[in-house]
């Protein structure tokens, strides 16, 4: 018999960000039919306000860490880090979606509501302390993401993207769920701490735990687009509307890594030397497949999709390190990565034009002469993706490879670093087109940068430079909160 059915206020506080997001999302849908078409445009701002409030709540909730709702959730530094990250991603997504939807004439309340729901799911994932919550969080996030990917229904590619994403995503979820069921069978609990204790004491049958870990690995690898389960990413990122692609490559991915890390570093900590080689191989495959495929792309969105596979590979390198500094490196990298990828996709959204007709790399020709600031922002993002100093990307990579060496993953580090040098080539090619070629018809016909996109470019640039010059604050926080043992 539970002590009290009604949660305490502290518990409510720890769950406040999710509550705010849910309420905001529901309100948006309820307000939409009531409002006139004019004030309906304000729904985007409303979503922004909801996200900001949730962000504030997440920070406040960090002040009273602890478990909530019978250990279903736990608010710790790790959870706060990822909550803030996905909420920031959400804010950037709203900023870049707003002008985009207006341009496409597809603005509607459901978009914002689904976005908020998806982020709710990711917040739940970030703070989940229970495999059931992990599953529900992933599902909320995914279901909303599937729909967002196919939001532009008249677009064939978007439809294809959504369908592919849905089918493969459901497939992955099935694996995950099967894994969870086996964990429950083995450890008689879905609570991460209990599972961990059972695994470490050897109470759970090792074979069963191993199969469960393998199945869950498949599920998570799908969600983070790690090889060999990366096939969906290029088609989905290419087909989905650019702001949604940006969101998909940052928000759900970061949250998926958060649960991936939490589950494998707690529940499966006891068998970590068994799953480490798998992560090792997956990391190498992701980096190599992503980078070498990206070399051959001419479509900007597709190239960014392959590059995001490669970046998932770098993050997996840090996971393979299986250490506190490795986990901290994952966190730092994901934060930097979210900023740079969101920014890059925001530029794509701007240049693509109505109906996303211009998404070839060649379409950026001469952007530097027509819109120097936009080009400079994209240059910062690309340099950060390469991992050049003074940008967050450098310290992200630095911490990852530092963690890898610390755990004696020397060959993985060498191969990863060589990979990142190869990757420089395709990012530099974009810079070449943007800075060296004469403006083409696309860049000549480019309208001014809308306010929302300005914000969606300025915030990541500033963030990346701060992370690149003074990485200390964020890193210390990450190290402090990456304690799973």
């Amino acid at each position, binding site marked *: 018999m539970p002590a009290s059915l009604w949660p305490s206020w502290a518990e409510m506080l720890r769950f406040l960000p999710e509550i705010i997001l849910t309420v905001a999302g529901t309100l948006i849908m309820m307000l939409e039919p009531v409002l006139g078409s004019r004030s*309906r445009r304000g729904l985007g701002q409303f979503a922004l306000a909801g996200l900001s409030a949730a962000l504030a709540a997440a920070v406040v909730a960090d002040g009273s860490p602890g478990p909530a709702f*019978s250990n*279903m959730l736990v608010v710790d530094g790790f959870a706060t880090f990822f909550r803030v990250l996905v909420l920031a991603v959400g804010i950037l997504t709203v900023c870049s979606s707003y002008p985009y939807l207006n341009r496409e004439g597809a603005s*509607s309340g*459901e978009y914002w*509501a689904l976005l908020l729901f998806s982020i709710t799911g990711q917040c739940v994932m970030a703070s989940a302390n229970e495999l*059931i919550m992990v599953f529900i969080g992933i599902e909320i996030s995914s279901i909303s993401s599937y*729909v967002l990917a196919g939001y532009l229904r008249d677009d064939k590619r978007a439809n294809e993207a959504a369908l592919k994403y849905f089918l493969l995503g459901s497939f992955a979820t099935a694996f995950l769920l099967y894994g969870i069921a086996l964990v429950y069978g083995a450890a008689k609990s879905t609570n991460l701490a209990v599972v961990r204790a059972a695994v470490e004491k050897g109470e759970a*049958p090792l074979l069963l735990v191993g199969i469960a870990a393998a199945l869950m690995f498949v599920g998570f690898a799908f969600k983070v687009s790690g090889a060999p389960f990366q096939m969906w990413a290029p088609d989905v990122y290419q087909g989905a509307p650019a702001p949604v692609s940006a969101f998909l490559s940052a928000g759900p991915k970061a949250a998926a890594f958060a649960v991936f890390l939490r589950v494998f570093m707690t529940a499966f900590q006891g068998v970590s030397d068994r799953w480490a080689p798998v992560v090792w191989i997956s990391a190498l495959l992701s980096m190599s497949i992503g980078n070498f495929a990206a070399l051959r792309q001419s479509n900007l969105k597709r190239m960014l999709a392959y590059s995001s596979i490669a970046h998932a590979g770098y993050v997996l390198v840090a996971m393979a390190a299986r250490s506190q500094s490795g986990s901290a490196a994952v966190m730092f990298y994901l934060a930097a990565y979210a900023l740079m990828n969101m920014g890059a996709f925001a530029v794509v959204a701007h240049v693509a034009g109505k109906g996303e007709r211009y998404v070839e790399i060649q379409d950026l020709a001469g952007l530097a002469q027509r819109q120097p600031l936009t080009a400079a922002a994209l240059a910062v993002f690309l340099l950060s993706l390469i991992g050049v100093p003074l940008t967050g990307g450098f310290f992200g990579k630095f911490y990852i490879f530092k963690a890898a060496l610390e755990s004696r993953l020397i060959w993985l580090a060498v191969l990863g670093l060589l990979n990142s040098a190869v990757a420089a080539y395709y990012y530099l090619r974009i810079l070449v087109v943007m800075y060296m070629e004469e403006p083409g018809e696309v860049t000549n016909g480019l309208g001014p940068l809308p306010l929302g996109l300005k914000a969606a470019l300025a915030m990541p640039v500033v963030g990346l430079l701060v992370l690149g010059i003074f990485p200390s604050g964020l890193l210390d926080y990450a190290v402090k909160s990456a304690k799973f043992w």
Partner: protein
Amino acid sequence: MAAASVASALLAVTRKNPVHSMLWVLTLFLHVAGIFLLLGAEFLAAVQVIVYAGAILIFYIFVVMLLDLPDEEARPRFGKHWPLAAAVGLCFAALAWLVRAGTGVAPAATRLAAEGPPRGGLSAIGMALFGPFALPFEMASLLLLAAIVGAVVLARRRAAGP
């Protein structure tokens, strides 16, 4: 009960008329529900009847009836991969047998039964859902809401636009 369910499953896959197949599946579901009931899992039995027999099967029958039946009937009953499917089924049966024999692959069914009163009782599930699992329960409703909104978005005709 088990024998009847196996029999109805066999009948379901061998009938020529899809509607007949469906009806056999229905009997299969009802028998499985009966098994659950015997094990003391009243809730599962109810869910089995309401969700599977009540909702999903009806949905299937709708689909089948909307399709062009004669054309469907004319085709051979089995695809060429049926031996594979049969093999998979047999494997599963073998696994189940192993579990029953308690060979250590998984907790034996007998051991589970010995662990005390059945936990699938209605009140036990109710207490769990509104006790420790209240949050997942609530979040699942959000999940459904999101799914419904998504379905509406995708199904709706394009809005006139602002």
